[in-house]
């Protein structure tokens, strides 16, 4: 579980996060949604410890990230897996080497064991026969799946995903979403996903935090998001033509 308490962060006098309180539960896919510029990525980077908050606290299973020394922070990060928006695969390595990388760095596994585990993961993310390809030789969707494979290779307790299906076709996006949800449930880990894709929200948003102007404007689940009267949320949700039509149909009782 991750608890966020009164989190503030700004850059050059401009306040980006203005007092965020949230709890991300274990075994659930927790989503952070909001329009571009609402502070989602800054929020995530604070949680990862890539940014130092100006005020507030981030608590990982009862332990404050702010009070941790650099060595403890480094240990905690070994329990984290991160799927970056643009995959962030190491382009000097092959697909297999990318997946084996955390295993190589943090375990005493032999090469054959690491290979076995990499193949198991590649199979899990539906990628076969790509072991020796470079990231530049595979498609965006495949890169995302490799990045997800790398994120889960070392069995993390916390999985973070920054816009996991941006730039993907709807079918591949659904595959990625389902994989994330399955992994979260199977391994009972805390998953935090940043997204502004309403299909993802509908599909896997078990708990949702809606950010607006650096503050939490709404909290709920994918079952509640279409029932809320919160204007900021409805503006965001029904900004998509598809969902506008769904609302019209709902209002007409179709």
């Amino acid at each position, binding site marked *: 579980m991750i608890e966020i308490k009164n989190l503030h962060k700004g850059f050059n006098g401009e306040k980006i996060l203005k007092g965020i309180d949230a709890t991300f539960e274990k075994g659930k896919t927790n989503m952070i949604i909001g329009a571009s510029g609402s502070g989602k990525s800054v929020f995530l980077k604070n949680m990862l410890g890539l940014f130092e908050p100006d005020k507030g606290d981030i608590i990982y299973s009862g332990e404050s990230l702010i009070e941790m020394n650099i060595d403890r922070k480094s240990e*905690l990060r070994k329990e984290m897996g991160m799927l970056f928006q643009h995959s962030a695969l190491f382009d000097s390595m092959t697909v297999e080497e990318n997946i084996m*990388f955390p295993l190589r*760095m943090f375990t005493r596994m032999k090469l054959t064991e690491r290979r076995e585990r990499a193949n198991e993961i590649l199979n899990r993310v539906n990628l076969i026969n790509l072991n020796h390809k470079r990231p530049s030789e595979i498609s965006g969707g495949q890169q995302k799946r490799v990045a997800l494979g790398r994120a889960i290779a070392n069995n993390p307790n916390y999985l973070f995903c920054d816009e996991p299906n941006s730039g993907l076709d709807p079918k591949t996006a659904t595959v990625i979403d389902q994989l994330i949800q399955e992994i979260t449930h199977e391994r009972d880990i805390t998953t935090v996903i940043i997204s502004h894709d309403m299909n993802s929200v509908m599909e896997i948003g078990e708990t949702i935090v809606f950010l607006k102007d650096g503050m939490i404007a709404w909290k709920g689940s994918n079952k509640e998001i279409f029932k809320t009267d919160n204007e900021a949320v409805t503006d965001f949700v029904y900004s998509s033509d598809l969902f506008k039509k769904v609302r019209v149909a709902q209002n007409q009782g179709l």
Partner: protein
Amino acid sequence: MLMLIGVFRRPTKTSVLKELILKEVDDLVIGSIGITAFISLFMGAVVALQTALNLDNPLIPKSLIGFATRQSIILEFAPTFISVIMAGKVGSYITSSIGTMRVTEQIDALEVMGINSLNYLVYPKIIALLFYPFLIAIIMFVGIFGGFMASVYGNLVSLEDFVIGLQDTFIPWHIAYAFIKTMVFGILLATIPSYHGYYMKGGALEVGKAATTSFVWTCVAIIIANYILTQILLTS
């Protein structure tokens, strides 16, 4: 300075570091032998030719060609001129490769995994460039060989006179001076481009700009360091 503190903190797993260092030695040092040897061969030849063509006075012995070639190659050409070329070849490679990793969030990925990215990326380059004096030793040999070929086979001086010139008033300290300079330049070649790549902000365009800036600053640092080291090591 802060970067260097970060480089030596929280070291990466030894077996991984060994592999990274060997890869960097291959990329940065061994991979530079070809072009630097080529330049050196012809520069040595030109130094010998220029000296020979400017020797009008019959009182000055022809052996001066060998002497001038040796001195200019060992004292300045091999350590300094080649380091400036390396700032372009190796320095811009270091800046652009680290800068691209920054732009594509690969450095963030390392940090999120709990890896000290500065140690992982910069430390192997610093260690690899400590092998830089080996490259310069080859360059010295090739440069003098180039001078020998041009002057002896170009009938500007006899083999005996060239060899006498090479051995004339040889001061072993000059070799030590050249290698001390090379070692310092090696550290500059590893750290300045790494700094510009690691701390760059922006996108692909800024990677190019950072590579250019790092080349300029590495050259400036090499030239200034060259003056200071010469002042300290040769005049005292």
